[in-house]
């Protein structure tokens, strides 16, 4: 029986926020990969959206579509890891293999898109690193059908499995009031029955154009979190289908020489392009003085970036609102009075990513 619990955090503290103040705004993007490394793309997107808020930028539709596609893929990958490892902690290894095979294929797509699997560094301020490669959208479309099958398999193995239900039902539960009090966001809050999703509550990018539901649970326990995550992956697949069906053509980067590097053709072939390349690399992106806060719905919940600019090429302050931190701070509440073995199930279900928790 657990009488009390004291989370001890900070072992993966790398001073992300302080390091961000040392370099240009673009140099922070590789750092953001290492926040929630299970869904690195979403951190890239969130950070770049925050910096873009300083400027009056119109990012072309295709650029935003591409960002939404990679965000939803990352959400699926994150949930696959969370459920897979949570089930492994409870002794169910098969689901992990099924999920990791699906995740592997998603990672292959991410790799052929940006050249790296985990540390993506895909977005840039004002757009993305590069457009989708040829045939990429078709490969993703073919993969979606497979993902539905994988979800069905794991659904069949876990959802009505008496052992899994006995281990997770009523374990690590929290009421909606307490969850809001602790600052829960994301799947763990929705498992308590609060239908709060920033994609619906405060639509950013083009989420208001597409059809998707916000799945909720009832009891807020480990089993409900599992159900919510499974349902969310299906909604993400639904979103991906709609996104791929309506993917527009055109450029992916904003047309603003003060923010976006000129295309390489211009750099190699014209003096103006060369000058603006040098100007932008040496001085960096220079937002006007002020402060912004942009919150996006990451896989774990609300991922917020609060940036203060003093008008120079370096951020004056970058503050991250990680979704993991409130979840971890509620651990004593979640596990009090439960068996020691339930601790494992609870910790896995709130999906602690230390990179994001400690920064």
């Amino acid at each position: 029986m657990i009488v009390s619990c004291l989370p001890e955090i900070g072992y993966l503290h790398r001073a992300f926020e302080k390091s961000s103040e040392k370099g240009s705004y673009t140099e922070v993007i590789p750092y953001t990969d290492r926040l929630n490394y299970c869904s690195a793309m979403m951190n890239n997107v969130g950070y770049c959206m925050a910096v873009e808020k300083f400027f009056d930028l119109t990012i072309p539709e295709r650029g935003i579509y591409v960002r939404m596609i990679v965000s939803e893929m990352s959400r699926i990958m994150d949930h696959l890891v969370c459920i897979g490892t949570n089930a492994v902690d409870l002794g169910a290894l098969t689901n992990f293999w099924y999920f990791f095979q699906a995740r592997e294929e998603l990672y292959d797509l991410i790799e052929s898109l940006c050249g790296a699997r985990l540390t993506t560094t895909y977005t840039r301020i004002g757009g993305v690193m590069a457009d989708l490669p040829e045939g990429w959208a078709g490969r993703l479309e073919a993969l979606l059908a497979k993902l539905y099958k994988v979800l069905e398999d794991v659904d069949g193995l876990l959802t009505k499995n008496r052992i899994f239900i006995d281990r997770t039902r009523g374990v690590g539960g929290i009421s909606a009031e307490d969850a809001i009090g602790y600052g829960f966001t994301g799947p763990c809050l929705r498992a308590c029955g609060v239908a709060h999703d920033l994609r619906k509550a405060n639509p950013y990018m083009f989420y208001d154009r597409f059809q998707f539901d916000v799945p909720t649970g009832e009891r807020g326990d480990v089993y409900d979190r599992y159900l919510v995550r499974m349902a969310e992956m299906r909604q993400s697949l639904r979103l991906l289908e709609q996104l791929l069906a309506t993917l527009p053509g055109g450029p992916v980067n904003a047309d603003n020489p003060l923010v976006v590097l000129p295309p390489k053709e211009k750099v190699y072939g014209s003096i103006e392009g060369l000058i603006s390349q040098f100007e932008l690399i040496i001085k960096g992106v220079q937002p006007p003085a002020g402060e912004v806060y942009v919150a996006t719905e990451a896989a774990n919940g609300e991922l917020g970036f609060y940036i203060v600019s003093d008008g120079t090429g370096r951020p004056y302050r970058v503050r991250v609102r990680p979704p993991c931190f409130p979840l971890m701070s509620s651990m004593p509440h979640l596990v009090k009075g439960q068996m020691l073995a339930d601790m494992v199930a609870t910790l896995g279900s709130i999906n602690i990513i230390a990179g994001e928790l400690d920064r």
Partner: protein
Amino acid sequence: MDFKERIYLWEIVKGLWITLRHLVYNLFHQRSMPTLHYPEEQRPMPARYRGRHRLTQRDDGSLKCTACMLCATACPAKCIYIEAQEGLPEGTEKRPQVYNIDMLKCVYCSLCVEACPCDAIRMDTGLMPPPADSREKFIYRIEELTKYPAIKHPNPPFLHRCGKL
């Protein structure tokens, strides 16, 4: 839970059916197994894979790099160290005398490739840097950086936002 779920047996049969289906499928489709016999078998790297760096050369074998320091400026890890010298023939563009990349610091973000104004550095070798037993061996000099050719995509001049790789 209804009766079927409570007695557990029905669900265990259903679960075993799923795993058995995968087993039988894998037995008869061994070629499409997702695992590889690494290192004998290796996965082909995608064209955009950000691997070991390469300093590109002109047709006469001289480096394209003009030691303008943009890559070293853009690098978030500050792992590039350049010392410039007089170009050849004298009075033309600078060229690097020393061009070192500390592979232990590099984060493979490809911001240097994007920053380069003359296509002098690329990450298209499709290789991962091999392990070494001392820190000095991880500092790659010009010789190591020109050692391997681009094996994956022979001529991608505009990696940055071209989308045609």
